[in-house]
C-alpha cells in the first residue's frame, strides 16, 4: 500500500480498529467467560464508533442499544445463572484442536486478505453532500424500512415472534 498518505483520520481509525481487534482476540483468548463477555462489550462499543464514522449514525445507536444493551446483558445473565464464570465447569485443554484452529484461522486470513485487500487499497470515500449525509438518520431508515423493505421487515417480525415462543418453550421447566 505505497500510495496511502497518513491522515489524522487514518491515525484515529488505526487506534480504534487496533483496540477493537485486540478485544476480539481477548474474547477468544480469555479462559474466564465473564472476561470474554466484557471484551465483547468493548468491541461492540468501538464498532458503534466506527459506524458513526461511516455516516451510519442510526446503526451506531442501534448497535449500542441492541448489542451492548440487550444481547450482552442476556449473555452475562446466563453466565451468572449457570455460574460459568469460574474455571471449574469447562476446563480448556491444550490439544491438537487448538493448534489446528489457530492454523486454520491464519490460513483463512491470509487467503482472504491476499485476494481481497490489494484491489481495495486505493479506494477512498467520496465526500458526502449534505442531502446524502442525512441518509444515516432515523427518518430515512424508517421511510425505507416501511416502503422498499416492508416484506423483509414483516418476515423478521414473524422470526422474532417464533424466537420468543421458542425460547420460552425451551427455558420453561413444565408448560
Amino acid at each position, binding site marked *: 500500500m505505497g500510495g*496511502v498518505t497518513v*491522515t489524522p*483520520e*487514518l491515525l*484515529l*481509525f488505526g487506534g480504534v*480498529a487496533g483496540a*477493537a*481487534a485486540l478485544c*476480539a482476540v481477548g*474474547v*477468544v483468548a480469555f479462559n474466564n*467467560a465473564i472476561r*470474554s*463477555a466484557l471484551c*465483547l462489550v468493548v*468491541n461492540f462499543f468501538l*464498532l458503534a464508533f*466506527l459506524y458513526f*464514522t*461511516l455516516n*451510519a449514525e442510526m446503526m451506531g445507536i*442501534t448497535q449500542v442499544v441492541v*448489542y451492548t444493551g*440487550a*444481547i450482552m446483558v*442476556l*449473555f452475562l445473565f446466563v*453466565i451468572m445463572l*449457570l455460574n*460459568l464464570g469460574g474455571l471449574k*465447569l469447562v476446563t480448556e*485443554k491444550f490439544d491438537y484442536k*487448538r493448534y*489446528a*484452529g489457530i492454523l486454520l*484461522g491464519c490460513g483463512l*486470513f491470509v487467503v*482472504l*486478505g491476499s485476494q*481481497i*485487500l490489494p484491489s*481495495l*487499497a*486505493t479506494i*477512498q*470515500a467520496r465526500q458526502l453532500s449534505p442531502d*446524502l449525509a442525512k*441518509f*444515516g438518520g432515523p427518518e430515512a431508515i424508517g421511510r425505507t424500512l416501511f416502503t422498499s423493505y416492508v416484506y*423483509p421487515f414483516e418476515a423478521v417480525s414473524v*422470526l422474532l415472534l417464533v*424466537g420468543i415462543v*421458542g*425460547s*420460552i*418453550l*425451551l*427455558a420453561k*421447566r413444565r408448560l
Partner: protein
Amino acid sequence: MNGVPLAAYIGLGMFMFTTGVVGVVIRRNPIVVFMCIELMLNAVNLTFLTFARYQMATYKSQVHMEQSLMAGQMMVIFVMAVAAAEVAVGLGIIMAIYRLRDNVDIDEMNVLRG
C-alpha cells in the same frame, strides 16, 4: 471517514471474522462459542456498512447513491434482528442442556437426544 481507504475497514472486518471462526473451532464453552458467532455477525455488519458508504465512489446518479446507502443499513438491521432471535433461542437451549446434564462442555454434546 475521509482519508481512510476501503481496505482498512475491510481488513478489520476480516480480522474480526477470522477471530470468530477460530473461537468457534477451539473454545469448549458454548457461551463463548455464541459470543464468537456474534463477533462474526458484527464483522459482517461492519463490512455491509463500509461497502454501503464506499461503493458510492463508482456511482454517478443520486438515486443509486441513496439506494446504496440504504441497502447496507437495511441488511444490518435484519442481521441484528436475526442475531437477537438466535441468541435468545441459543441461550435457551444451553439452559435446557445444563438443566439436563449439569455439564455444558460442547465437545461432549455429540447426540441430539437428551
